[in-house]
């Protein structure tokens, strides 16, 4: 069988001054009909650039400087722009990571999908409407007629992605390129979208080039997999072979960094409670003039949890479950309406602003976004020294402590006078951690601290957290949407949905024998759960013992 799409020694040159001369060098891949080829790699590996090079949607200054992209008889790399436009959409279609930004917010879904037909075919308006309706039904959107008239913001993330898929499949393209199509979605929605892509691909015989960073997704969906590093394909083969017998050291390292879903044997946890959350409520009121048409959202509803001293409490849930709001209630960035948060004998919620400022040191927070959580105009050392100085340390002593903390979190103490943008994502997260530790807190609240990081960096930061927890006797509240990570690092977990804790208990028990249907659904949705990564994991698991 001849290949649908072949990349022959494709090279893509980056503009001068980039960190390397070529985004892609000598990439050779072929996509057969009726298969899903996963291109997997970390950020900067060139996987998205591969997709963009095929579509010839490269940023300005980035050019193809060698090789061919054969689509049927034609070399896409040398086609003129007008001919290329007839290939895009009709021959090769693409779906993107963030459906909200890929759709035009001012036009209805039906209008945008119909545009595919208006551009590439001569169908009448009536026929177009009928075709769009069929397409939406095909991607299993509940009420196609209603959805056609909806605007993008009126749909959920999963429905938007379904609409994008419908748009991509409108003209029955031979090749579908999917660039991280499920990364922005919740795990249960991701499972549905993956099933849908697989199903449509089998039914239509489309070849799918699937770009992802997630080995779970690879295990779930791919027929073959190509692993990329620094713009080169380092390993290529059938999924089962690559995942169970990786040949290249980089592949091995990546697979080993994926946390296991089974919890390690429980650590002995103190029976003493250091932080107890009692009946906390937080509601948001939106809209409504003079009380009419106002909407009340229960972000956190009657949550009671306990954090054992020296232990880690994991709070897991999907977006909108209220887990971040709860974290911010604990450090009182958000004021809950009712309830108590007790640290020893003091109720943090009843402190006055001035008392709270002094008590702040006991509970510190690590944030999700390694780019947004550091003031870009302050030096890294100042960011860490700030806290102790607020609480009365002199500048020289604070700077000395900042240097010690840099060493503690595995950064070069000499780099304290560099600015945040000179550090990588993982290093920035370490700075954030050093800043939180500077006040010698008893409790660390970590809100998705690793979800913006690549999987190998993620493993390093998690190992650091686990290590510090042991060395400094910290208690941790760990917010995450990733159940694999929760399984590795948490002693106790609470599963949240719509502001309510639906299930909580020791990690092994909740994950091994879930009681609530929602917990079961979450666990069942984890991509690649059936794939055993265990034998490769030895010595690299996020340490607990």
């Amino acid at each position, binding site marked *: 069988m001849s290949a649908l799409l072949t990349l022959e020694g494709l090279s893509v040159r980056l503009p001068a001054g980039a960190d390397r001369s070529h985004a892609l060098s000598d990439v050779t891949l072929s996509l057969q009909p009726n298969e899903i080829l996963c291109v997997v790699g970390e950020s900067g590996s060139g996987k998205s650039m591969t997709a963009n090079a095929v579509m010839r949607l490269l940023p*300005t*200054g980035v050019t193809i400087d060698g090789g061919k992209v054969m689509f049927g008889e034609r070399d896409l790399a040398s086609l003129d722009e007008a001919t290329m436009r007839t290939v895009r959409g009709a021959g090769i279609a693409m779906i993107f990571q963030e459906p909200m930004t890929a759709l035009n917010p001012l036009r209805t879904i039906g209008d945008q999908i119909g545009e595919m037909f208006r551009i590439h075919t001569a169908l009448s308006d009536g026929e177009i409407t009928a075709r769009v309706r069929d397409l939406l039904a095909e991607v299993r959107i509940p009420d196609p007629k209603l959805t056609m008239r909806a605007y993008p913001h009126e749909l959920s993330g999963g429905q938007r992605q379904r609409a994008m898929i419908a748009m991509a499949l409108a003209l029955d393209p031979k090749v579908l390129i999917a660039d991280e199509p499920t990364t922005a979605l919740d795990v249960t929605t991701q499972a549905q979208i993956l099933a849908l892509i697989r199903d449509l691909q089998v039914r239509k015989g489309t070849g799918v080039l699937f770009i992802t960073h997630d080995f779970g997704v690879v295990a779930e969906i791919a027929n073959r997999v190509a692993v990329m590093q620094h713009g080169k394909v380092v390993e290529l083969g059938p999924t089962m072979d690559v995942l169970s017998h990786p040949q290249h050291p980089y592949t091995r390292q990546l697979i080993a960094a994926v946390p296991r879903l089974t919890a390690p044997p429980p650590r002995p946890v103190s029976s003493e409670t250091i932080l107890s959350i009692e009946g906390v409520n937080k509601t948001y009121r939106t809209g409504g003039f003079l009380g009419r048409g106002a909407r009340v959202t229960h972000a956190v509803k009657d949550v009671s949890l306990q954090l054992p001293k020296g232990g880690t409490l994991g709070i897991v849930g999907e977006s909108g479950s209220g887990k971040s709001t709860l974290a*911010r209630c604990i*450090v009182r*960035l958000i004021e809950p309406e009712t309830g108590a948060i007790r640290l020893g004998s003091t109720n943090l919620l009843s402190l006055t602003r001035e008392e*709270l*400022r*002094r008590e*702040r*040191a006991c*509970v*510190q*927070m690590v*944030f*999700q*976004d390694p780019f*947004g*959580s*550091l*003031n*870009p*105009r*302050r030096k890294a050392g100042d960011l860490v020294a*700030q*806290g102790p100085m*607020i*609480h009365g340390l002199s500048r020289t002593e604070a700077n000395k402590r900042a240097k010690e903390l840099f060493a503690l979190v595995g950064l070069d103490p000499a780099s304290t006078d560099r600015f945040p943008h000179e550090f990588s994502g993982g290093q920035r997260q370490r700075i*954030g951690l050093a*800043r*939180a530790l500077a*006040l010698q807190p008893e409790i660390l609240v970590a809100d998705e601290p690793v979800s913006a990081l690549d999987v190998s960096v993620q493993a390093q930061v998690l190992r650091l957290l686990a290590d510090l927890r042991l060395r400094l006797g910290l208690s941790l509240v760990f917010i995450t949407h990733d159940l694999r990570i929760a399984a590795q690092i948490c002693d106790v977990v609470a599963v949240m949905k719509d502001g309510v804790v639906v299930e909580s208990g020791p990690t092994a028990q909740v994950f091994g024998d879930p009681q609530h249907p929602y917990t079961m659904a979450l666990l069942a949705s984890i991509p690649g759960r059936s794939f055993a990564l265990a034998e490769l994991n030895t010595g690299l698991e996020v340490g607990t013992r």
Partner: protein
Amino acid sequence: MSLLRAYCRSPSAVVGLVLLLIVVAMAASAGWLFPRDPLALAGRPLVWPGDNPRFSFGTDNSGRDIAAQIFHGARISLLIGVVATSIAIVIGVVIGAISGYYGGWVDTVLMRVTEAFQTLPNFLLLLVLVAVFGSNLMTVTIAIGVVSWPAPARLTRAEFLSFRNREFVQACRTLGMKDRQIIFREILPNALPPVIVYASVVMAVAILLESALAFLRLSDPNVASWGNLIGLGRDVLRIQWYVSAIPGLAILLTVLAVSLVGQGLNDALNPRLKGR
């Protein structure tokens, strides 16, 4: 250094900078080139430019040297521009920062006050202030500053609204930092670039406002300002039009220079325009 290079990429910004430097040079050299009082009688009234080599720009209706008034007037225009702009920016930034950072009822009250100022035509308000407090140079300058703050306030507020929920600000709060420190030491440096760019607009408007006041003979008559000269020239506009036209041209070029510099700064400070 890289900022300077980014700035110099745009030809119009360089033209603006050169013009502005010329005006500054005029102001600086006024005392040296025209050491006499520019408002003293110098010769026969209404000498056309070029008729007498002593008065390259001619004389006005009472026989004062126009060139001397233009050079000394540059000092006044720049002084009013810089001081009034500083006043407007300081008031605007403080009100905008507090309003944007705290939100809620503080924001509502401050923004309604700002809107009250904005709905009044600011020249009318300026006239009222000058009528009440008199028209010497200081009151005129302060009055211009006081009527120009609402726009910078709204701009600062918008910047603060987008910054106050950033994670780095939340991090400062969890460290126990005082609000004052968060507002002025953490957020403000990040929010300032667009406000600095907008300051050029305020400065251009301030210079124009002073000229407009002087045209109505409501500015300080005891200083040599461009506006005063235009006001004087009004009486002889049909025949000796140069009396108004020369200072008018000076104002035009100065305001143009300030606007071009502001635009150039905007392009240089805006990272999204890089590489275009």
